[in-house]
Protein backbone atom coordinates (compact mmCIF):
# COMPACT_ATOMS: atom_id res chain seq x y z
CA UNK A 1 0.00 0.00 0.00
CA UNK A 2 1.31 3.38 -0.89
CA UNK A 3 2.67 5.48 1.89
CA UNK A 4 2.69 8.61 -0.16
CA UNK A 5 0.36 11.28 1.02
CA UNK A 6 -2.04 12.66 -1.48
CA UNK A 7 -0.11 15.37 -3.14
CA UNK A 8 -1.26 18.27 -5.19
CA UNK A 9 -2.48 16.45 -8.28
CA UNK A 10 -4.29 19.47 -9.32
CA UNK A 11 -3.69 21.01 -12.67
CA UNK A 12 -2.49 24.56 -12.67
CA UNK A 13 -5.25 27.15 -13.09
CA UNK A 14 -3.81 28.04 -16.48
CA UNK A 15 -4.01 24.45 -17.66
CA UNK A 16 -7.53 24.20 -16.31
CA UNK A 17 -8.61 27.32 -18.13
CA UNK A 18 -7.10 25.96 -21.33
CA UNK A 19 -8.90 22.67 -20.87
CA UNK A 20 -12.10 24.55 -20.16
CA UNK A 21 -11.76 26.26 -23.51
CA UNK A 22 -11.36 22.87 -25.13
CA UNK A 23 -14.40 21.63 -23.32
CA UNK A 24 -16.55 24.43 -24.68
CA UNK A 25 -15.01 25.00 -28.05
CA UNK A 26 -13.44 21.60 -28.74
CA UNK A 27 -15.54 20.83 -31.77
CA UNK A 28 -15.16 24.34 -33.13
CA UNK A 29 -11.41 24.18 -32.62
CA UNK A 30 -11.52 20.81 -34.36
CA UNK A 31 -13.39 22.34 -37.28
CA UNK A 32 -10.92 25.20 -37.58
CA UNK A 33 -7.90 22.93 -37.22
CA UNK A 34 -9.31 20.74 -39.95
CA UNK A 35 -9.93 23.69 -42.26
CA UNK A 36 -6.41 24.98 -41.64
CA UNK A 37 -4.89 21.57 -42.24
CA UNK A 38 -6.69 21.11 -45.53
CA UNK A 39 -5.79 24.64 -46.56
CA UNK A 40 -2.14 23.80 -46.07
CA UNK A 41 -2.44 20.45 -47.81
CA UNK A 42 -4.38 21.75 -50.81
CA UNK A 43 -3.64 25.47 -50.88
CA UNK A 44 -4.87 26.03 -54.42
CA UNK A 45 -8.15 24.17 -54.39
CA UNK A 46 -9.48 24.00 -50.84
CA UNK A 47 -9.41 27.47 -49.28
CA UNK A 48 -11.22 29.34 -52.03
CA UNK A 49 -14.43 31.28 -51.78
CA UNK A 50 -15.81 29.16 -54.58
CA UNK A 51 -15.09 25.91 -52.81
CA UNK A 52 -16.46 27.12 -49.50
CA UNK A 53 -19.62 28.32 -51.20
CA UNK A 54 -19.96 24.97 -52.93
CA UNK A 55 -19.48 23.00 -49.75
CA UNK A 56 -22.00 25.15 -47.92
CA UNK A 57 -24.43 24.92 -50.79
CA UNK A 58 -24.11 21.17 -50.87
CA UNK A 59 -24.38 20.83 -47.10
CA UNK A 60 -27.35 23.15 -46.76
CA UNK A 61 -29.89 20.40 -47.31
CA UNK A 62 -28.34 18.14 -44.72
CA UNK A 63 -28.16 21.10 -42.35
CA UNK A 64 -31.83 21.90 -42.72
CA UNK A 65 -32.90 18.34 -42.04
CA UNK A 66 -30.43 18.09 -39.17
CA UNK A 67 -31.76 21.35 -37.75
CA UNK A 68 -35.22 19.85 -37.68
CA UNK A 69 -33.93 16.66 -36.10
CA UNK A 70 -32.29 18.81 -33.45
CA UNK A 71 -35.71 19.98 -32.33
CA UNK A 72 -36.88 16.37 -32.01
CA UNK A 73 -33.86 15.39 -29.94
CA UNK A 74 -34.02 18.56 -27.86
CA UNK A 75 -37.44 17.46 -26.66
CA UNK A 76 -35.93 14.10 -25.84
CA UNK A 77 -37.06 11.95 -28.74
CA UNK A 78 -35.51 10.46 -31.84
CA UNK A 79 -36.98 10.91 -35.31
CA UNK A 80 -35.86 8.16 -37.68
CA UNK A 81 -38.52 8.98 -40.25
CA UNK A 82 -36.89 12.11 -41.65
CA UNK A 83 -34.86 10.52 -44.43
CA UNK A 84 -37.75 8.44 -45.72
CA UNK A 85 -40.08 11.40 -45.33
CA UNK A 86 -37.80 13.66 -47.35
CA UNK A 87 -37.70 11.07 -50.13
CA UNK A 88 -41.49 10.97 -50.22
CA UNK A 89 -41.72 14.76 -50.19
CA UNK A 90 -39.34 14.94 -53.13
CA UNK A 91 -41.50 12.63 -55.18
CA UNK A 92 -44.63 14.36 -54.13
CA UNK A 93 -43.54 17.88 -55.00
CA UNK A 94 -42.35 16.75 -58.39
CA UNK A 95 -45.66 15.00 -58.93
CA UNK A 96 -47.63 18.05 -57.87
CA UNK A 97 -45.63 20.33 -60.12
CA UNK A 98 -45.27 18.03 -63.13
CA UNK A 99 -48.45 15.98 -63.18
CA UNK A 100 -50.90 18.17 -61.36
CA UNK A 101 -49.41 21.37 -62.76
CA UNK A 102 -49.82 23.19 -59.47
CA UNK A 103 -48.10 26.54 -59.12
CA UNK A 104 -44.78 25.98 -57.39
CA UNK A 105 -45.46 28.09 -54.28
CA UNK A 106 -48.72 26.24 -53.70
CA UNK A 107 -47.03 22.87 -54.15
CA UNK A 108 -44.32 23.89 -51.70
CA UNK A 109 -46.90 24.93 -49.14
CA UNK A 110 -48.81 21.68 -49.55
CA UNK A 111 -45.72 19.54 -49.16
CA UNK A 112 -44.49 21.41 -46.11
CA UNK A 113 -47.94 21.08 -44.61
CA UNK A 114 -47.74 17.36 -45.25
CA UNK A 115 -44.41 17.34 -43.46
CA UNK A 116 -46.11 18.95 -40.51
CA UNK A 117 -48.85 16.33 -40.63
CA UNK A 118 -46.30 13.52 -40.63
CA UNK A 119 -44.65 15.14 -37.61
CA UNK A 120 -48.04 15.36 -35.97
CA UNK A 121 -48.62 11.66 -36.56
CA UNK A 122 -45.19 10.81 -35.16
CA UNK A 123 -45.83 13.01 -32.16
CA UNK A 124 -49.24 11.55 -31.60
CA UNK A 125 -48.01 7.97 -31.69
CA UNK A 126 -45.20 8.82 -29.32
CA UNK A 127 -47.09 10.93 -26.79
CA UNK A 128 -50.60 9.52 -26.86
CA UNK A 129 -50.15 5.89 -27.91
CA UNK A 130 -46.89 6.01 -25.96
CA UNK A 131 -44.84 4.05 -28.44
CA UNK A 132 -41.10 4.51 -28.04
CA UNK A 133 -39.97 7.09 -30.58
CA UNK A 134 -37.43 4.77 -32.21
CA UNK A 135 -40.12 2.26 -33.13
CA UNK A 136 -42.77 4.86 -33.87
CA UNK A 137 -40.68 6.86 -36.30
CA UNK A 138 -39.09 3.79 -37.84
CA UNK A 139 -42.57 2.41 -38.40
CA UNK A 140 -43.85 5.68 -39.84
CA UNK A 141 -40.73 5.95 -41.99
CA UNK A 142 -41.31 2.46 -43.38
CA UNK A 143 -44.91 3.33 -44.13
CA UNK A 144 -43.80 6.51 -45.89
CA UNK A 145 -41.45 4.48 -48.08
CA UNK A 146 -44.42 2.36 -49.04
CA UNK A 147 -46.46 5.46 -49.83
CA UNK A 148 -43.66 6.93 -51.92
CA UNK A 149 -43.61 3.69 -53.82
CA UNK A 150 -47.36 3.67 -54.21
CA UNK A 151 -47.38 7.25 -55.50
CA UNK A 152 -44.66 6.79 -58.06
CA UNK A 153 -44.71 3.02 -58.58
CA UNK A 154 -41.00 3.35 -58.01
CA UNK A 155 -40.51 5.23 -61.27
CA UNK A 156 -38.78 8.56 -60.82
CA UNK A 157 -40.75 11.52 -62.01
CA UNK A 158 -38.50 13.29 -64.46
CA UNK A 159 -40.12 14.42 -67.63
CA UNK A 160 -41.35 17.96 -67.82
CA UNK A 161 -39.88 19.34 -64.64
CA UNK A 162 -40.17 23.11 -65.18
CA UNK A 163 -37.06 25.23 -65.04
CA UNK A 164 -38.64 27.40 -62.36
CA UNK A 165 -38.72 24.42 -60.06
CA UNK A 166 -35.05 23.69 -60.67
CA UNK A 167 -34.30 27.33 -59.90
CA UNK A 168 -35.61 26.82 -56.38
CA UNK A 169 -32.29 25.26 -55.43
CA UNK A 170 -30.07 26.31 -58.32
CA UNK A 171 -30.91 29.97 -58.13
CA UNK A 172 -28.90 32.59 -56.34
CA UNK A 173 -30.16 35.61 -54.55
CA UNK A 174 -28.71 38.49 -52.58
CA UNK A 175 -25.04 39.07 -53.55
CA UNK A 176 -25.23 35.85 -55.53
CA UNK A 177 -25.61 33.64 -52.50
CA UNK A 178 -27.19 30.33 -53.50
CA UNK A 179 -30.80 29.94 -52.44
CA UNK A 180 -30.00 26.74 -50.57
CA UNK A 181 -27.63 28.60 -48.29
CA UNK A 182 -30.15 31.35 -47.71
CA UNK A 183 -32.84 28.79 -46.89
CA UNK A 184 -30.46 27.07 -44.50
CA UNK A 185 -29.57 30.30 -42.73
CA UNK A 186 -33.20 31.30 -42.41
CA UNK A 187 -34.24 27.91 -41.08
CA UNK A 188 -31.38 27.42 -38.64
CA UNK A 189 -31.55 31.04 -37.56
CA UNK A 190 -35.24 30.72 -36.93
CA UNK A 191 -34.80 27.50 -35.00
CA UNK A 192 -32.02 29.01 -32.94
CA UNK A 193 -34.19 32.00 -32.07
CA UNK A 194 -37.08 29.74 -31.20
CA UNK A 195 -35.12 27.45 -28.92
CA UNK A 196 -32.76 29.91 -27.30
CA UNK A 197 -34.57 33.20 -27.26
CA UNK A 198 -38.28 32.61 -26.79
CA UNK A 199 -40.37 31.50 -23.82
CA UNK A 200 -41.61 28.59 -25.92
CA UNK A 201 -38.00 27.61 -26.42
CA UNK A 202 -37.56 27.52 -22.67
CA UNK A 203 -40.36 24.99 -22.50
CA UNK A 204 -38.78 23.00 -25.31
CA UNK A 205 -35.50 22.86 -23.44
CA UNK A 206 -37.25 22.00 -20.21
CA UNK A 207 -39.04 19.03 -21.72
CA UNK A 208 -35.80 17.64 -23.05
CA UNK A 209 -33.96 18.34 -19.80
CA UNK A 210 -36.39 16.63 -17.45
CA UNK A 211 -39.85 15.81 -18.69
CA UNK A 212 -41.20 14.98 -15.23
CA UNK A 213 -40.04 18.27 -13.80
CA UNK A 214 -41.31 20.16 -16.81
CA UNK A 215 -44.75 18.66 -16.35
CA UNK A 216 -44.84 19.60 -12.69
CA UNK A 217 -43.67 23.10 -13.55
CA UNK A 218 -46.80 23.49 -15.65
CA UNK A 219 -45.44 22.74 -19.09
CA UNK A 220 -47.69 20.81 -21.45
CA UNK A 221 -45.10 18.15 -22.20
CA UNK A 222 -47.04 16.27 -24.85
CA UNK A 223 -47.74 19.40 -26.82
CA UNK A 224 -44.11 20.42 -26.78
CA UNK A 225 -42.96 16.97 -27.89
CA UNK A 226 -45.47 17.01 -30.72
CA UNK A 227 -44.17 20.44 -31.69
CA UNK A 228 -40.65 19.00 -31.86
CA UNK A 229 -41.80 16.29 -34.25
CA UNK A 230 -43.77 18.75 -36.35
CA UNK A 231 -40.76 21.00 -36.81
CA UNK A 232 -38.62 17.99 -37.62
CA UNK A 233 -41.22 16.89 -40.18
CA UNK A 234 -41.41 20.34 -41.77
CA UNK A 235 -37.64 20.57 -42.12
CA UNK A 236 -37.60 17.13 -43.72
CA UNK A 237 -40.20 18.35 -46.18
CA UNK A 238 -38.15 21.41 -47.09
CA UNK A 239 -35.07 19.25 -47.57
CA UNK A 240 -37.06 16.87 -49.78
CA UNK A 241 -38.28 19.77 -51.90
CA UNK A 242 -34.84 21.29 -52.35
CA UNK A 243 -33.33 17.89 -53.11
CA UNK A 244 -35.92 17.19 -55.80
CA UNK A 245 -35.19 20.59 -57.27
CA UNK A 246 -31.47 19.92 -57.19
CA UNK A 247 -31.80 16.49 -58.79
CA UNK A 248 -34.48 17.66 -61.16
CA UNK A 249 -36.55 14.63 -60.32
CA UNK A 250 -38.59 12.94 -57.65
CA UNK A 251 -36.91 9.67 -56.84
CA UNK A 252 -37.86 7.16 -54.21
CA UNK A 253 -35.23 6.76 -51.47
CA UNK A 254 -33.15 9.66 -52.84
CA UNK A 255 -33.00 11.26 -49.38
CA UNK A 256 -32.81 8.14 -47.22
CA UNK A 257 -29.12 8.62 -46.54
CA UNK A 258 -29.72 12.01 -44.93
CA UNK A 259 -30.85 10.18 -41.83
CA UNK A 260 -27.38 9.07 -40.81
CA UNK A 261 -25.75 12.36 -41.80
CA UNK A 262 -28.28 14.30 -39.76
CA UNK A 263 -27.73 12.09 -36.75
CA UNK A 264 -24.00 12.46 -36.97
CA UNK A 265 -24.33 16.25 -37.20
CA UNK A 266 -26.71 16.46 -34.27
CA UNK A 267 -24.67 14.27 -31.96
CA UNK A 268 -21.40 15.89 -32.98
CA UNK A 269 -23.04 19.19 -32.20
CA UNK A 270 -24.05 18.08 -28.76
CA UNK A 271 -20.42 18.21 -27.71
CA UNK A 272 -20.18 21.88 -28.68
CA UNK A 273 -20.39 24.64 -26.06
CA UNK A 274 -22.63 22.68 -23.70
CA UNK A 275 -21.92 19.30 -22.29
CA UNK A 276 -23.96 16.69 -24.09
CA UNK A 277 -26.93 18.90 -24.73
CA UNK A 278 -28.43 19.18 -28.15
CA UNK A 279 -28.75 22.63 -29.64
CA UNK A 280 -29.09 24.26 -33.02
CA UNK A 281 -25.73 25.98 -33.09
CA UNK A 282 -24.01 22.72 -32.25
CA UNK A 283 -25.78 20.95 -35.07
CA UNK A 284 -24.55 23.65 -37.43
CA UNK A 285 -20.98 23.06 -36.30
CA UNK A 286 -21.45 19.30 -36.54
CA UNK A 287 -22.76 19.52 -40.08
CA UNK A 288 -19.88 21.80 -41.08
CA UNK A 289 -17.33 19.35 -39.69
CA UNK A 290 -18.86 16.53 -41.70
CA UNK A 291 -19.15 18.57 -44.90
CA UNK A 292 -15.68 20.09 -44.77
CA UNK A 293 -14.15 16.80 -43.70
CA UNK A 294 -15.59 15.03 -46.71
CA UNK A 295 -14.65 17.83 -49.08
CA UNK A 296 -11.15 18.36 -47.75
CA UNK A 297 -10.22 14.68 -47.77
CA UNK A 298 -11.49 14.42 -51.27
CA UNK A 299 -9.67 17.42 -52.60
CA UNK A 300 -6.52 16.21 -50.99
CA UNK A 301 -7.16 13.03 -52.92
CA UNK A 302 -7.00 10.50 -50.15
CA UNK A 303 -7.87 7.00 -51.39
CA UNK A 304 -11.42 5.85 -50.69
CA UNK A 305 -10.55 3.58 -47.82
CA UNK A 306 -8.52 6.16 -46.00
CA UNK A 307 -11.29 8.69 -46.53
CA UNK A 308 -13.60 6.48 -44.52
CA UNK A 309 -10.98 5.93 -41.87
CA UNK A 310 -10.23 9.63 -41.58
CA UNK A 311 -13.89 10.61 -41.56
CA UNK A 312 -14.52 8.23 -38.70
CA UNK A 313 -11.47 9.55 -36.90
CA UNK A 314 -12.58 13.16 -37.36
CA UNK A 315 -15.91 12.41 -35.70
CA UNK A 316 -14.28 10.80 -32.70
CA UNK A 317 -11.46 13.29 -32.34
CA UNK A 318 -13.69 16.36 -32.60
CA UNK A 319 -15.92 15.11 -29.83
CA UNK A 320 -13.12 13.47 -27.91
CA UNK A 321 -11.20 16.74 -27.56
CA UNK A 322 -14.20 18.46 -26.09
CA UNK A 323 -15.07 15.59 -23.78
CA UNK A 324 -11.58 14.97 -22.52
CA UNK A 325 -11.06 18.66 -21.95
CA UNK A 326 -14.22 18.75 -19.93
CA UNK A 327 -13.51 15.77 -17.77
CA UNK A 328 -9.93 16.83 -17.05
CA UNK A 329 -10.94 20.39 -16.25
CA UNK A 330 -13.55 19.16 -13.82
CA UNK A 331 -11.38 16.63 -12.12
Amino acid sequence: MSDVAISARRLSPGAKAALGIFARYGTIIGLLAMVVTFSILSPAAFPTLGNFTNVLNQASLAMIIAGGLTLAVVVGELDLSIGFAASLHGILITGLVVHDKLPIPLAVVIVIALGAVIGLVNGFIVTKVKVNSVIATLGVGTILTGLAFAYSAGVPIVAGVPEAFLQLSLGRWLFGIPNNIIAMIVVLGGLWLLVERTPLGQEIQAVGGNAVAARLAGVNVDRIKILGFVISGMCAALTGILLASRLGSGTASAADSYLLTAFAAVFLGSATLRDGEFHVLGTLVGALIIAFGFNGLNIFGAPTFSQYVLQGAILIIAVGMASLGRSLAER
Partner: protein
Amino acid sequence: QDKPLLGIVSISATEANNVRYIQGATKAADELGWKTNVVDAAGSADQANAAIQNFAQLKAHAIIDMVFPYSSIGAGLAAAGDAGIPVVTWGGGLGSTVAATNGSGGPMAIPVVDLMVEKMGGKGSILALTYRTGEVCRNREVVMDEIVAKHPDITVTKNEVRIPGYFEDGAQYANAWLASHPAGKENLAIWGCWDDPAIGAIGSLRAQGRDDVLVYGINGNAQALENIKNGFMTATAWQDSFTEGYNMVKMLKDIKDAGGAWQAKAAEVPAVLVTRETADAFLKDHPEAIK
Protein backbone atom coordinates in the same frame (compact mmCIF):
# COMPACT_ATOMS: atom_id res chain seq x y z
CA GLN B 1 -55.39 -18.91 -57.21
CA ASP B 2 -53.52 -21.75 -58.81
CA LYS B 3 -51.71 -19.62 -61.34
CA PRO B 4 -47.99 -20.38 -61.47
CA LEU B 5 -46.06 -17.93 -59.33
CA LEU B 6 -43.10 -15.93 -60.58
CA GLY B 7 -41.00 -14.66 -57.70
CA ILE B 8 -38.92 -11.56 -58.27
CA VAL B 9 -36.31 -10.43 -55.77
CA SER B 10 -35.05 -6.93 -56.47
CA ILE B 11 -32.07 -5.17 -54.97
CA SER B 12 -34.10 -1.98 -55.01
CA ALA B 13 -37.65 -2.03 -56.26
CA THR B 14 -37.55 1.76 -56.28
CA GLU B 15 -34.59 2.11 -58.64
CA ALA B 16 -35.66 3.17 -62.12
CA ASN B 17 -34.02 0.42 -64.12
CA ASN B 18 -35.18 -2.29 -61.75
CA VAL B 19 -38.67 -0.95 -62.11
CA ARG B 20 -38.54 -1.14 -65.89
CA TYR B 21 -37.28 -4.70 -65.78
CA ILE B 22 -40.04 -5.66 -63.36
CA GLN B 23 -42.59 -4.07 -65.66
CA GLY B 24 -41.30 -6.08 -68.61
CA ALA B 25 -41.24 -9.28 -66.62
CA THR B 26 -44.73 -8.67 -65.30
CA LYS B 27 -46.06 -8.08 -68.80
CA ALA B 28 -44.62 -11.36 -70.05
CA ALA B 29 -45.89 -13.17 -66.99
CA ASP B 30 -49.38 -11.83 -67.57
CA GLU B 31 -49.24 -13.08 -71.13
CA LEU B 32 -48.23 -16.52 -69.87
CA GLY B 33 -50.96 -16.52 -67.27
CA TRP B 34 -48.50 -16.38 -64.36
CA LYS B 35 -48.80 -14.13 -61.40
CA THR B 36 -45.83 -12.18 -60.08
CA ASN B 37 -44.74 -11.32 -56.60
CA VAL B 38 -42.01 -8.74 -56.07
CA VAL B 39 -39.90 -8.52 -52.95
CA ASP B 40 -37.73 -5.48 -52.31
CA ALA B 41 -34.57 -6.66 -50.59
CA ALA B 42 -33.55 -3.04 -50.03
CA GLY B 43 -29.94 -3.68 -50.91
CA SER B 44 -29.49 -6.48 -48.41
CA ALA B 45 -28.13 -9.75 -49.78
CA ASP B 46 -29.35 -11.47 -46.66
CA GLN B 47 -32.90 -10.29 -47.29
CA ALA B 48 -32.54 -11.50 -50.87
CA ASN B 49 -31.58 -14.97 -49.69
CA ALA B 50 -34.51 -14.96 -47.31
CA ALA B 51 -36.88 -13.90 -50.06
CA ILE B 52 -35.64 -16.63 -52.39
CA GLN B 53 -36.04 -19.17 -49.62
CA ASN B 54 -39.55 -17.88 -49.01
CA PHE B 55 -40.38 -18.35 -52.69
CA ALA B 56 -38.98 -21.87 -52.48
CA GLN B 57 -41.34 -22.46 -49.55
CA LEU B 58 -44.18 -21.21 -51.69
CA LYS B 59 -43.18 -23.66 -54.44
CA ALA B 60 -42.88 -20.81 -56.89
CA HIS B 61 -42.75 -21.66 -60.58
CA ALA B 62 -39.56 -19.67 -61.16
CA ILE B 63 -37.47 -17.03 -59.45
CA ILE B 64 -35.67 -13.98 -60.80
CA ASP B 65 -32.79 -12.50 -58.87
CA MET B 66 -32.21 -8.90 -59.78
CA VAL B 67 -28.65 -7.59 -59.52
CA PHE B 68 -27.44 -9.66 -56.55
CA PRO B 69 -24.51 -11.64 -57.91
CA TYR B 70 -24.97 -15.39 -57.89
CA SER B 71 -22.05 -15.53 -55.48
CA SER B 72 -24.02 -13.76 -52.76
CA ILE B 73 -27.20 -15.79 -52.90
CA GLY B 74 -25.70 -19.16 -52.02
CA ALA B 75 -28.34 -20.07 -49.45
CA GLY B 76 -31.17 -18.99 -51.72
CA LEU B 77 -29.86 -20.99 -54.66
CA ALA B 78 -29.49 -24.04 -52.45
CA ALA B 79 -33.10 -23.78 -51.27
CA ALA B 80 -34.43 -23.23 -54.80
CA GLY B 81 -32.31 -26.10 -56.11
CA ASP B 82 -33.71 -28.45 -53.47
CA ALA B 83 -37.23 -27.45 -54.47
CA GLY B 84 -36.43 -27.84 -58.17
CA ILE B 85 -37.17 -24.19 -58.97
CA PRO B 86 -35.11 -22.49 -61.68
CA VAL B 87 -33.40 -19.23 -60.72
CA VAL B 88 -32.31 -16.70 -63.32
CA THR B 89 -30.40 -13.49 -62.68
CA TRP B 90 -30.43 -10.05 -64.13
CA GLY B 91 -27.02 -8.52 -63.79
CA GLY B 92 -26.09 -11.24 -61.32
CA GLY B 93 -24.03 -13.34 -63.67
CA LEU B 94 -24.13 -16.98 -64.65
CA GLY B 95 -22.72 -19.49 -62.20
CA SER B 96 -23.57 -22.05 -59.59
CA THR B 97 -27.08 -23.30 -60.41
CA VAL B 98 -28.26 -20.15 -62.18
CA ALA B 99 -30.19 -21.17 -65.29
CA ALA B 100 -29.88 -18.02 -67.34
CA THR B 101 -28.83 -14.42 -67.14
CA ASN B 102 -29.02 -11.17 -68.97
CA GLY B 103 -28.35 -7.54 -68.20
CA SER B 104 -24.69 -8.31 -67.49
CA GLY B 105 -24.00 -4.66 -67.86
CA GLY B 106 -20.23 -4.72 -68.35
CA PRO B 107 -20.05 -4.56 -72.13
CA MET B 108 -22.58 -1.71 -72.16
CA ALA B 109 -19.89 0.56 -70.88
CA ILE B 110 -17.71 0.16 -73.97
CA PRO B 111 -19.43 2.60 -76.33
CA VAL B 112 -19.83 5.19 -73.59
CA VAL B 113 -16.21 5.09 -72.50
CA ASP B 114 -15.01 5.05 -76.10
CA LEU B 115 -17.03 8.17 -76.80
CA MET B 116 -15.75 9.84 -73.66
CA VAL B 117 -12.12 9.21 -74.51
CA GLU B 118 -12.68 10.34 -78.05
CA LYS B 119 -14.30 13.61 -77.01
CA MET B 120 -11.41 14.28 -74.65
CA GLY B 121 -8.99 13.83 -77.46
CA GLY B 122 -7.10 11.35 -75.35
CA LYS B 123 -6.05 13.87 -72.70
CA GLY B 124 -7.47 15.35 -69.56
CA SER B 125 -9.00 14.25 -66.28
CA ILE B 126 -11.87 11.97 -65.43
CA LEU B 127 -13.82 11.69 -62.21
CA ALA B 128 -15.11 8.11 -62.06
CA LEU B 129 -17.92 7.36 -59.64
CA THR B 130 -17.72 3.67 -58.91
CA TYR B 131 -19.56 1.07 -56.83
CA ARG B 132 -17.43 -2.00 -56.48
CA THR B 133 -19.75 -3.96 -54.29
CA GLY B 134 -22.06 -4.30 -57.28
CA GLU B 135 -21.07 -6.92 -59.85
CA VAL B 136 -22.29 -4.85 -62.76
CA CYS B 137 -20.58 -1.68 -61.72
CA ARG B 138 -17.37 -3.53 -61.08
CA ASN B 139 -17.43 -4.99 -64.58
CA ARG B 140 -17.98 -1.55 -66.05
CA GLU B 141 -15.10 -0.16 -64.06
CA VAL B 142 -12.85 -2.88 -65.49
CA VAL B 143 -13.98 -1.93 -68.98
CA MET B 144 -13.21 1.71 -68.34
CA ASP B 145 -9.82 0.91 -66.85
CA GLU B 146 -8.87 -1.12 -69.90
CA ILE B 147 -9.83 1.56 -72.37
CA VAL B 148 -8.36 4.48 -70.43
CA ALA B 149 -5.13 2.57 -69.89
CA LYS B 150 -4.42 3.09 -73.57
CA HIS B 151 -4.36 6.86 -73.04
CA PRO B 152 -1.54 7.77 -70.68
CA ASP B 153 -2.49 11.46 -70.82
CA ILE B 154 -5.74 10.83 -69.06
CA THR B 155 -5.77 10.87 -65.27
CA VAL B 156 -8.63 9.19 -63.47
CA THR B 157 -9.81 10.01 -59.97
CA LYS B 158 -12.02 7.26 -58.57
CA ASN B 159 -14.52 7.65 -55.80
CA GLU B 160 -16.83 5.03 -54.38
CA VAL B 161 -20.44 6.00 -53.91
CA ARG B 162 -22.76 4.40 -51.40
CA ILE B 163 -26.23 2.90 -51.68
CA PRO B 164 -28.30 4.66 -50.50
CA GLY B 165 -26.72 8.07 -50.80
CA TYR B 166 -25.43 7.92 -54.39
CA PHE B 167 -26.91 11.26 -55.44
CA GLU B 168 -25.42 13.10 -52.52
CA ASP B 169 -22.10 11.26 -52.82
CA GLY B 170 -21.93 11.98 -56.54
CA ALA B 171 -22.52 15.67 -55.88
CA GLN B 172 -20.03 15.92 -53.05
CA TYR B 173 -17.29 14.07 -54.91
CA ALA B 174 -17.91 16.31 -57.89
CA ASN B 175 -17.66 19.41 -55.72
CA ALA B 176 -14.30 18.39 -54.36
CA TRP B 177 -12.96 17.25 -57.68
CA LEU B 178 -14.10 20.41 -59.43
CA ALA B 179 -12.37 22.54 -56.83
CA SER B 180 -9.03 21.15 -57.92
CA HIS B 181 -9.97 21.02 -61.61
CA PRO B 182 -10.80 24.58 -62.60
CA ALA B 183 -12.39 25.35 -65.93
CA GLY B 184 -10.33 26.01 -69.01
CA LYS B 185 -7.15 24.15 -68.08
CA GLU B 186 -7.86 20.72 -69.55
CA ASN B 187 -10.55 18.40 -70.84
CA LEU B 188 -12.78 17.20 -68.04
CA ALA B 189 -15.30 14.42 -67.78
CA ILE B 190 -17.35 12.76 -65.08
CA TRP B 191 -18.33 9.14 -65.52
CA GLY B 192 -20.81 7.25 -63.40
CA CYS B 193 -20.85 3.46 -63.37
CA TRP B 194 -24.56 4.02 -63.62
CA ASP B 195 -26.59 7.13 -64.25
CA ASP B 196 -27.61 8.18 -60.77
CA PRO B 197 -24.25 9.22 -59.29
CA ALA B 198 -23.59 11.14 -62.50
CA ILE B 199 -26.94 12.86 -62.07
CA GLY B 200 -25.90 13.84 -58.57
CA ALA B 201 -22.74 15.34 -60.07
CA ILE B 202 -24.80 17.27 -62.62
CA GLY B 203 -26.60 18.95 -59.73
CA SER B 204 -23.27 20.14 -58.45
CA LEU B 205 -22.10 21.31 -61.89
CA ARG B 206 -25.28 23.28 -62.37
CA ALA B 207 -25.07 24.80 -58.92
CA GLN B 208 -21.59 26.02 -59.77
CA GLY B 209 -22.50 27.08 -63.26
CA ARG B 210 -19.78 24.87 -64.78
CA ASP B 211 -20.50 23.80 -68.34
CA ASP B 212 -17.00 22.71 -69.29
CA VAL B 213 -17.37 19.21 -67.89
CA LEU B 214 -18.92 16.41 -69.93
CA VAL B 215 -20.95 13.89 -68.00
CA TYR B 216 -21.50 10.27 -68.90
CA GLY B 217 -23.79 7.68 -67.41
CA ILE B 218 -24.85 4.14 -68.14
CA ASN B 219 -28.28 2.46 -68.08
CA GLY B 220 -30.20 5.22 -69.77
CA ASN B 221 -32.77 5.75 -67.10
CA ALA B 222 -35.45 8.29 -67.74
CA GLN B 223 -33.71 10.98 -65.81
CA ALA B 224 -30.48 10.49 -67.71
CA LEU B 225 -32.31 10.70 -71.00
CA GLU B 226 -34.01 13.86 -69.84
CA ASN B 227 -30.63 15.30 -68.92
CA ILE B 228 -29.22 14.39 -72.31
CA LYS B 229 -32.14 16.08 -74.00
CA ASN B 230 -31.48 19.20 -71.93
CA GLY B 231 -27.78 19.10 -72.63
CA PHE B 232 -26.51 18.37 -69.15
CA MET B 233 -25.37 14.84 -69.88
CA THR B 234 -23.34 13.91 -72.90
CA ALA B 235 -24.10 10.24 -73.33
CA THR B 236 -25.49 7.15 -71.73
CA ALA B 237 -26.03 3.58 -72.85
CA TRP B 238 -29.69 2.74 -72.78
CA GLN B 239 -30.27 -0.65 -71.36
CA ASP B 240 -33.56 -1.98 -72.57
CA SER B 241 -34.40 -3.46 -69.25
CA PHE B 242 -38.06 -3.70 -70.09
CA THR B 243 -37.27 -6.04 -72.96
CA GLU B 244 -34.72 -7.85 -70.85
CA GLY B 245 -37.36 -8.56 -68.26
CA TYR B 246 -39.87 -9.51 -70.90
CA ASN B 247 -37.50 -11.84 -72.74
CA MET B 248 -36.26 -13.42 -69.57
CA VAL B 249 -39.72 -14.48 -68.47
CA LYS B 250 -40.43 -15.88 -71.91
CA MET B 251 -37.17 -17.79 -71.64
CA LEU B 252 -38.22 -19.06 -68.22
CA LYS B 253 -41.07 -20.81 -69.93
CA ASP B 254 -38.56 -22.56 -72.20
CA ILE B 255 -36.44 -23.42 -69.17
CA LYS B 256 -39.41 -24.99 -67.44
CA ASP B 257 -40.37 -26.86 -70.58
CA ALA B 258 -36.85 -28.16 -71.16
CA GLY B 259 -36.57 -29.35 -67.56
CA GLY B 260 -33.28 -31.11 -66.85
CA ALA B 261 -32.16 -30.74 -70.44
CA TRP B 262 -31.70 -26.96 -70.16
CA GLN B 263 -28.25 -25.57 -70.77
CA ALA B 264 -27.47 -22.47 -68.76
CA LYS B 265 -26.94 -19.46 -70.98
CA ALA B 266 -26.71 -15.70 -71.21
CA ALA B 267 -29.30 -13.97 -73.34
CA GLU B 268 -28.19 -10.38 -73.68
CA VAL B 269 -30.25 -7.62 -75.20
CA PRO B 270 -27.94 -5.10 -76.83
CA ALA B 271 -27.73 -1.62 -75.34
CA VAL B 272 -28.20 1.58 -77.34
CA LEU B 273 -25.80 4.50 -77.07
CA VAL B 274 -27.76 7.71 -76.65
CA THR B 275 -26.13 11.10 -77.16
CA ARG B 276 -27.34 14.64 -77.57
CA GLU B 277 -27.45 14.10 -81.33
CA THR B 278 -29.28 10.81 -81.30
CA ALA B 279 -31.58 11.59 -78.42
CA ASP B 280 -34.53 12.82 -80.42
CA ALA B 281 -34.46 9.92 -82.84
CA PHE B 282 -34.03 7.50 -79.99
CA LEU B 283 -36.97 8.88 -78.10
CA LYS B 284 -39.12 8.66 -81.17
CA ASP B 285 -38.29 4.94 -81.38
CA HIS B 286 -38.61 4.37 -77.66
CA PRO B 287 -41.08 6.84 -76.20
CA GLU B 288 -41.55 4.45 -73.31
CA ALA B 289 -37.98 5.11 -72.20
CA ILE B 290 -39.04 8.33 -70.49
CA LYS B 291 -42.59 7.11 -70.02
